[in-house]
């Protein structure tokens, strides 16, 4: 892969053999096709975590064939805190083409659905799901969410393990949920990369990936890592001290990995420049020789030529030997992405003090916590969480199943909301995800009963806009706005009533749930019927 010269290559001769062979810098995410010519170098490989996902800048409309549908005469909860008393939504090519008060104008060929007496909301977003990695039916063979072999597994990715035939997916859609983040479990201090998915029928996990959504990074505080690795496996960590020590070490190592990459790129850049200078010098010297030889006349004597060569010795240029970049380190690369903000950090944490320790760590090593999950004691530090802009993903009323969950109160969501924070209802459950509306309702009513005024239009944000923001996908989902994905739910009755039910659910403009016309075939092959 090195070009070898004893003399200067002819212009245009490839400096590298990269066009047909492996990339000179080893395996990277960079396309290995660059061919440098004289005066041009193949770009130095970018640090892998800085490349981003192939579609990170784009959100292709893969549902351009979705039908044109006008939903009209419905009460509409927009997802951003606003509400239309009697409005319309136009779905076109998988996007929202129009929304507003009044019946709307159906374009030619549009299907018009009268949603009089119904409520329309955005499709719900669940920030905390293990569907696909702990799928139904529960079985040992289906335990794919915790890479228990070590407490630090930042490089693990749920996208590699999602079983698209989890029967829970279809049921989640029937409950009005259209986007979910599939996280690794909380047995590990750093569980790995979480994947945000759109709920469609699929045969591979990759098909479910929400185009453009950033990866999440799942971390865990408190009891789970120390119980699983310390008490059950007699390893590390065994205490909360150990938790933080290992997490701190992992981030500092990632910091070092970033420095190694930056140093390598700087050094390699300088070596290239130095080589270019040598090449220029060589050319100059070779020009001098040519001139001296020319000065020997048209019929030069041997002596003259020998003297010219003595005076202008042919320089020998050592071949350029690219140095390999730092060895790939999937864990550190993931954490480097978190440090530089391209991955969003979601931390499973119950107690206020655990959240405080995590915030101290994030300040020290330099990452931002996007959200705390579970966060049953968020109400104790709600002002601090609000000040830092950290979302609080939690349940309406779970508590007590372990000691760190002992102080959970049903008013947690409402208190965070009232403090101006970003309250999010999450499920952590393939059963709960079918009833996110009920969970939001319980949270709202717990608040109201405690004297905290919360409108339905505000409370619906807990399962729409707020989680979409927490996952970094609010440009596309979470509210009903022109240009956003047509993820739309039509509710029979009020979604805040226990009797309310999703009647129609559109995902990317495609009708994926129709209460009155259930599909003849289930999405999951596990449920095929003879």
């Amino acid at each position, binding site marked *: 892969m090195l070009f070898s010269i004893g003399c200067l290559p002819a212009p245009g001769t490839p400096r590298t053999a990269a066009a047909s062979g492996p990339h000179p810098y080893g395996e990277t995410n960079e396309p290995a096709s660059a061919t440098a010519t004289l005066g041009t170098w193949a770009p130095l490989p970018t640090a892998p975590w800085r490349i981003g996902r192939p579609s990170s800048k784009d959100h292709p409309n893969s549902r351009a064939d979705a039908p044109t549908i006008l939903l009209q005469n419905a009460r509409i909860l927009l997802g951003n805190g606003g509400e239309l008393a009697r409005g319309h939504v136009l779905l076109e090519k998988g996007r929202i083409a129009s929304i507003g008060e009044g019946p709307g104008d159906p374009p030619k060929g549009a299907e018009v659905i009268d949603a009089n007496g119904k409520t329309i909301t955005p499709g719900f977003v669940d920030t905390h799901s293990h569907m696909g990695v702990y799928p139904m*039916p529960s079985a040992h063979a289906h335990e794919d969410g915790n890479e228990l072999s070590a407490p630090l597994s930042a490089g693990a990715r749920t996208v590699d393990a999602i079983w698209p035939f989890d029967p829970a997916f279809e049921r989640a859609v029937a409950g009005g949920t259209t986007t979910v983040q599939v996280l690794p479990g909380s047995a590990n201090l750093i569980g790995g990369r979480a994947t945000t998915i759109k709920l469609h029928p699929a045969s591979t996990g990759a098909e479910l990936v929400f185009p453009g959504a950033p990866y999440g990074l799942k971390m865990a505080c408190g009891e789970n890592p120390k*119980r699983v690795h310390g008490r059950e496996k007699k390893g590390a960590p065994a205490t909360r001290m150990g938790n933080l020590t290992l997490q701190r070490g992992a981030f500092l190592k990632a910091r070092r990995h970033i420095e190694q990459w930056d140093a390598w790129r700087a050094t390699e850049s300088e070596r290239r420049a130095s080589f270019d200078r040598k090449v220029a010098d060589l050319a100059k010297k070779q020009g001098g020789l040519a001139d001296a030889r020319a000065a020997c006349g048209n019929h030069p004597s041997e002596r003259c030529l020998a003297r010219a060569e003595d005076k202008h010795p042919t320089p020998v240029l050592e071949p350029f030997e690219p140095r390999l970049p730092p060895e790939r380190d999937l864990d550190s690369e993931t954490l480097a992405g978190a440090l530089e903000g391209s991955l969003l950090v979601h931390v499973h944490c119950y107690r206020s003090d655990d959240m405080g320790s995590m915030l101290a760590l994030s300040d020290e090593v330099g990452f931002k916590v996007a959200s705390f999950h579970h966060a049953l004691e968020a*109400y104790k530090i709600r002002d601090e969480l609000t000040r830092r802009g950290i979302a609080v993903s939690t349940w309406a009323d779970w508590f007590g*199943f*372990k000691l760190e969950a002992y102080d959970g109160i049903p008013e947690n969501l409402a208190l965070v909301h009232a403090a101006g924070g970003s309250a999010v209802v999450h499920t952590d*459950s393939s059963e709960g995800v*079918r009833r996110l509306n009920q969970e939001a309702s319980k949270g709202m009513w717990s608040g109201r009963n405690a004297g905290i005024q919360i409108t339905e239009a505000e409370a619906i944000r807990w399962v729409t806009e707020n989680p979409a923001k927490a996952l970094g996908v609010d440009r596309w989902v979470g509210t009903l706005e022109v240009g956003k994905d047509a993820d739309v739910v039509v509710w029979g009755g009020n979604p*805040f009533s*226990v009797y309310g039910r999703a009647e129609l659910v559109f995902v990317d403009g495609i009708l994926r749930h129709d209460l009155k016309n259930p599909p003849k075939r289930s999405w999951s092959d596990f449920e095929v019927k003879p």
Partner: protein
Amino acid sequence: MKRRQMLGLVGVGALLLAGDALGQERKPAAKKPTGPAEQPSPKRLAIVGATLHRTGAEPLADAVIVIENGRIVSIGTDRGAAANATTLDVRGKLVTGGLIDPLTRVGVTEVDLEAQGRDDAFTGERAIAAGFAVADGYDPVSPIVAITRREGLTSVGVIPVSGLVTGQSAWADLAGELPDKALGSRSLALHVLFDDFQLGSGPVNHATAFYLLRELFDDANIFRAKRGDFEKRQLRSLAASRLDLDVVTRVLEGKLPVVFHADRAADISNVITFAKTYKLRAIIASAAEGWKVAGELAAAKIPAIVYPLDEGPRDLVARGAREDNAALLVKAGVSVALSSGESHNARKLRQVAGNAVRAGLPHTAALDALTDAPARIFGLEGYGSPKEKRVANLAVWSGDPLELSSRCEHLIIRGRQVSLASRQTALLEKYR
């Protein structure tokens, strides 16, 4: 946290409870239960003005319910009946019997993942622990009790959850500071758990379960017939200990119902046959596929306690769980109670029932399932939907008890109004 079955079992390792957990069979609680000491008890309490909803009667508007010595003495609309009584005026509200979750671990599980405060299981490694009585470990002042009360529950069934024959459940009223002030029955039913129990190194399958059960019940019959020989050691060895056999004897004599926790239609069908063979007062619990054998259950007069949030192939055994399970069972004529199967979240019972109604269960059947059916199913006299002479366990609601927007405003347990404060409300007050 993954919800497993309706017992709310979480992935908890071996329990390491100290001490002797062998249950002693006890006599049922005194006939006149005494109330909690939380508030001074008026001699006569009248709840006046609400609309009363109860099993087997039309809603009674502007009801006057008079309570004396912990029992309901009259239900009517005559305000005169409230004379000489302390009056709780609840005009415009709804009143129902206090809600009852028949299958919980309230009071025997403080924190799931801590062995301390867990009294929900026999701590030895045995398939059969019929003598184990969860009442012996019940803590009536567990903070979970007050938290559960806040959602309108006045009583719970407390069940043992480890082994095949896991032991005897208890009936607890959610008040009183000592067990004898709270327990309505120390031996409510015997429980048999088909799934989720381990023996030695691995789980026991259903066929093995029936084999062990048959041996136990056959030997209990011999024990019953030849008790004298047993005491003189003139009997071959039997499949269980003396106390276990004592309890199974009561089951065989029809004095104690037995709750079979089973989900698969095939298992439920086998339970029906088993119950017929041994003439048992059987109850089916969990019963995810109960709807498939609803007719058979109705014909055998076997009631069911179900968890209506299950739907779909939960595991390889219960593949046919349906959300309208309760509705289909009731329609077939089965007596149905609902349960959360929980410990800390037993308070979610009314949401559970609301979902059953959403799936087709008539509202009146749902209220019956939460108030009267549990007492009826266990044959616990003196409890159930409000009636004269029954224990005065009542809840006053701001609206439809099954609706998320409603709240329990007053709770009466054993004739006394109890506080709705809990450590959760205390935390709220501290941090609000």
